[in-house]
């Protein structure tokens, strides 16, 4: 147990060092950082346009008021930031195609860890995480949810489960590169599915809600934290939210191992 804890500490330390390195290399060209932020702000405009329409019309999304919708859109923007932040996950297809995994394989530590936590994109994550957090806080305030330890704890727990899902789904989508030649189509489709979280799941008909909860549980990424503190989930749904995160993480790990077994170095 002590050895495990020591190993975990080592990974955390290495992850922090990777973070510092990524930040330093980003700030080497500040203009690139600024232009990255601008690109994300432009994309965020689209996400906010949807919120603007809901707010300006004062419509209800299912049983959710427009104030509640702010929190859900905030969570979606925040999670998009997390997805953008994990550029190590997003760069897997390129690394595999170029044969760049060779070098990482020779390094000490878990290959999955080194690849997926080796690089971070601060420029794309920064605006999303900042605006997402602000919107979540604003939505929370407008909904007059008491800021008790219990409420915050539940919200953070499901937010963390959402982060695990973001990592696992993103990883699984990227790992398909071991089986198909061009990932462009898969990326397009995954991005389109991801964007369904731009609005709370209550907007969609029952059949889509069921698919997004049980078959391809993409709705769990951004909906569960808000729904949990609003008291919209029963015990089974609360358990399902955590169980899916754990299962998705295990599945992504198995897929990683299966993919690596297919990896053939073609580097010269």
């Amino acid at each position, binding site marked *: 147990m002590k050895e495990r804890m020591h190993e975990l500490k080592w990974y955390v330390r290495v992850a922090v060092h990777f973070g510092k390195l990524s930040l330093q290399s980003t700030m080497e060209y500040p*203009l*690139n950082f600024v*232009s*990255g932020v*601008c*690109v994300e*702000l*432009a*994309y965020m*405009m*689209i996400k906010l*346009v*949807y919120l603007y*329409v*809901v707010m*300006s*019309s004062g*419509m*209800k*999304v*299912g049983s959710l008021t427009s104030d509640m919708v702010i929190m859900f859109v905030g969570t979606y923007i925040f999670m998009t930031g997390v997805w953008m932040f994990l550029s190590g996950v997003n760069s897997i297809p390129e690394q595999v195609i170029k044969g760049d995994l060779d070098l990482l394989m020779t390094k000490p530590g878990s290959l999955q860890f080194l690849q997926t936590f080796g690089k971070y994109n601060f420029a794309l994550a920064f605006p999303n995480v900042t605006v997402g957090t602000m919107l979540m806080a604003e939505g929370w305030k407008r909904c007059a949810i008491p800021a008790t330890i219990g409420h915050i704890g539940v919200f953070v727990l499901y937010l963390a489960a959402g982060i695990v899902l973001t990592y696992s789904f993103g990883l699984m989508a990227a790992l398909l590169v071991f089986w198909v030649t*061009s990932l*462009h*189509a*898969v990326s*397009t*489709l995954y*991005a*389109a*599915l991801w*964007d*369904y979280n*731009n*609005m709370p799941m209550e*907007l*969609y*008909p029952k059949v889509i809600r069921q698919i997004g909860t049980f078959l391809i549980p993409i709705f769990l990424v951004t909906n569960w934290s808000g729904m949990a503190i609003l008291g919209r989930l029963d015990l089974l749904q609360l358990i399902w939210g955590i169980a899916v995160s754990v299962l998705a993480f295990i599945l992504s790990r198995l897929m990683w191992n299966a993919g690596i077994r297919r990896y053939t170095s073609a580097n010269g």
Partner: protein
Amino acid sequence: MEKYKTVFWAGVSNSMEFRFDFLMNLIGTVFPILMQVFIWSAMYGDSGCDAMYGYTFPQMILYVVVAGAVAKFTDTGVEYMVNEDIHSGGIARYLVRPVNYVGFRLCDVVGNKFVSMISMVFVTLGALLLLFFAVDFVVTPAAVLLFLLSLALAAVLNFFIFFCLSTLAFWLTEIGNFFHAISVVIMVMSGGIFPVSVFGSTYESISRYIPLTYTINYPIQILSGTAGITEAVEVLCIQLIWIFLLAVLGRCSWHLGLKKYVAVGG
């Protein structure tokens, strides 16, 4: 003329090279459209109004269905091609050939978009049929014809808007991200996601005097019937005027840029 025809057909075969990607892109277009359909269904259902932002429910559904497809169709990506040619020194090979670079790129883009245009016609017809059977929404053949005409002009207009922007690559080195950001902003301002009337009367008034809305918003207004025949003809004329003005601007900035351009290589 023969050489431009060849470029056009080369563009067509390029676009069909990766058929699976093409199909997935089409599905990727349908997903956000579906989301919008759900939003507007909820909104009209919630408000109980017949019309919102100047559109009835069928007109709004038609708008969001067609806008997604039109935005994909008019997005030429010419700015990235020109940027690549300028920064890699690739334009040098066009300068020594008996070919007009703008004409070459226009034919290449139109060729690449040809298959999309055919699928676009099917998407529009599908939406119209669906609305006809679902809510008895009828569109006149004249509106469809004028829409297709304005759509072709919209694609050319969009080409020149982005061609003008792409010539900035002569003066700026790191411009890829700028193109990325500006194309998203332009899409929203053109009405590629929601009709411009959603953004308030002030922007709606301003939008009449800028070319952006003539690439998506006004062509769809023609189809949905929110613009009559006279207004439709007016839109077509304004599109032609903007194409002319931007073509002149593009040519001027291209020649100015070429004066600054230096090709280095063996």
